[in-house]
C-alpha cells in the first residue's frame, strides 16, 4: 500500500503566546479528497503551513508523500493553492508564466524552461480549461479561472499532494462545479488532496472524507457523517443549518 499523502501526528504549534494547533492529527491517503472544516482561527492555515514545513511544530511529526516535508518539497510533491487575498493579482505575469512557476523546481540555475516544460504547462492549462486565456495577465481572469490556473501550476509541477486554502471563496456555482470535477479527476489519478473551507455545500460532492478542526482534529470520517448537524455544532458552536458561520 502506498504511503499516506499527508500524515500529521499529534502536532502542536505555538505562535508566541497563542496556541494555534494543540495535538492535531490528520492522515490522508493518496486518491482521497479530504475537506478540512473549521472556523477562522481554528488552525487550518497553520496546519497547511505545518505540512509545507513553513512552521516547525513544538511537538509531533509530519510526513508528506511518505517522507519528510523537506524531502517532499525538494521532490516537487507538494502544491499549494493560496487564498485569493494572499495573491497580488495586479502582478505583471501572464497565466502561462504563473503555471510555468510550477516547473521551477525541475529547472536549472536560470530556470530557463525547456521544451518538455512548455509541453507540461500546455497540458496543464488544457486540463483545467484555461488554455485560451494563457496569455492574459493573471488578474484578468474570473475568480474560478484564477483558482484553476493555480491548480494547473500544481499539475505542471507533477504534485502528488495538493493543498487548497478556501478554493471556493469568491467563486460562482458553475466554476465551483468545474473545480469539484477537476479535483475528483486528480484524486482518481492518485493525488491526495486537502481542501480547507468554511463553505460546506460543495463538500458532499467533493470530499470522500472530512475533518473538523478546532486547534486539534475533533472528528475525521466520511463526509456525510462529519457534516451531521450535531457534529458541526462541535466545531462551530452554532451553524446547525449546515452552513458554517464565517
Amino acid at each position, binding site marked *: 500500500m502506498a504511503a499516506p499523502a499527508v500524515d500529521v501526528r499529534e502536532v502542536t504549534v505555538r505562535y508566541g503566546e497563542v496556541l494555534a494547533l494543540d495535538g492535531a492529527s490528520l492522515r490522508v491517503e493518496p486518491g482521497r479528497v479530504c475537506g478540512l472544516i473549521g472556523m477562522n482561527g481554528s488552525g487550518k492555515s497553520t496546519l497547511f503551513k505545518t505540512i*509545507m*514545513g*513553513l512552521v516547525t511544530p513544538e511537538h509531533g511529526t509530519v510526513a508528506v508523500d511518505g517522507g519528510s516535508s*523537506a524531502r517532499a*518539497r*525538494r*521532490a*516537487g510533491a*507538494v*502544491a*499549494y493553492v*493560496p487564498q485569493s487575498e*494572499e*495573491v*497580488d493579482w495586479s*502582478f*505583471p*505575469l*501572464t497565466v502561462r*508564466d*504563473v503555471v510555468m*512557476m*510550477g516547473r*521551477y*523546481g525541475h529547472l536549472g*540555475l*536560470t*530556470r*530557463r524552461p525547456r521544451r518538455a516544460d512548455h509541453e507540461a504547462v500546455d497540458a496543464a492549462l488544457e486540463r483545467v480549461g484555461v488554455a485560451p486565456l494563457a496569455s492574459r*495577465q493573471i488578474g484578468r481572469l474570473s475568480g474560478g479561472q484564477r483558482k484553476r490556473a493555480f491548480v494547473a*501550476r500544481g499539475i505542471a*509541477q507533477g504534485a502528488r499532494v495538493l493543498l487548497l486554502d478556501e478554493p471556493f471563496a469568491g467563486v460562482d456555482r458553475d466554476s465551483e462545479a468545474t473545480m469539484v470535477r477537476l479535483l475528483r479527476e486528480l484524486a482518481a489519478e492518485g493525488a491526495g488532496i486537502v481542501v480547507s473551507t468554511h463553505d460546506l455545500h460543495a463538500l458532499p460532492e467533493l470530499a470522500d472524507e472530512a475533518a473538523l478542526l478546532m486547534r486539534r482534529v475533533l472528528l475525521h470520517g466520511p463526509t456525510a457523517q462529519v457534516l451531521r448537524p450535531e457534529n458541526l455544532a462541535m466545531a462551530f458552536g452554532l451553524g446547525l443549518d449546515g452552513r458554517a458561520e464565517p
Partner: protein
Amino acid sequence: MSALATTAVDLLVDPLAYDFMVRALLTTLVASVVCAVLSCWLVLIGWSLMGDAVAHAVLPGVVLAYVVGAPFALGAVVFGFLAVGLIGVVRDTSRVKEDAAIGIVFTTLFALGLVLISVTPSQTDLNHIIFGNLLGVSWPELTQVMVLGAVVLAVLLIKSRDFTLYAFDRTHAHAIGLRPRLLGAVLLGLLALTAVVALQAVGVVLVVAMLIIPGATAYLLTDRFGRMLVLAPVISASCAVIGLYASYYLDTAPGGTVVLAQGAAFALVYLASPRHGLLGTRWAARRRRLRRERAAA
C-alpha cells in the same frame, strides 16, 4: 547637413569634450541602468521604503570603509544587512510598527554616518557621498561603479526568474524546495551594492529615487514583467542622459536634475499610459459609459 541639425549635434557633442563630462555620463548610465533593473523587483515586492532605508543606512559603512581603507562595497553590505536586521528586531520585539521601525533605524544609521564624516579628515570627499558628485567622479571610482554594476546586473539576470517567483509567491517558492529567505537576503545584498553604485552618481539622498521611479514607471506601462525589465532601464538611462545634458546647459546640480527628469517621466506616464494611466483609464471608463447609454437608448 542643415544648420539646425549641426547645432543639435554640437549641443550633444560639446560637453563630451570635457573628460569629466564623459565620466559623469558613463557613471549615470551605469547607475541608472542597474538601479532601474533592481527597481522592477523592489516595487513589486513592496520594498520601496526598505530600499530607501538601506540606501541611507550604508552611509556609516561607506565612511568606515574609507577610514580603514576597505572597499566601499564591503562596508555598505555590512551596514545594509545591519539595518535590515535592526529593523526586524525593533518590529518584532516591541509594539512599534514596521514603518516606524524603518524610520528609526535608517535615520539613526544615516546620522551616525554624518557624525563619522564630521570627525573624519578630508571631509570634502565624503560629503560627496551624501549629495553625489557626478562631475567629480574619478576613473578609479568609475571603474568601481562599473565592476559593482556588472556584478549586480549579472546576479539579477541569472536569478531573474527566482526573484520574480519570490516577489510573486514566496509560499510556492518554499513549497517547491527553493529557499525564499536566501533569495530575499541576496536581493537585500544586491540592494546595498546598488546603493554604492548609485551614490556615486546622485548621492545617498537621491538614490532611492533611482531605485523606485523607473520600476514604478515601467509598471504603469506594461502587464509583462519581461517588458518591465527592458522599459525601466531604457527610461531611466534616457532620463539620466537628458538630465545630465540639461544640468550642463542650465548649470544646475546634475544629480538633482537627473532625478527630476525621472520624476517628470513618471508624471508623463502616470497621466498618459494607455492601459494604466490616469487619462487612459478615465477615457476607457467614459467610452464604456457612453456605450452603455447608447445601448440603453
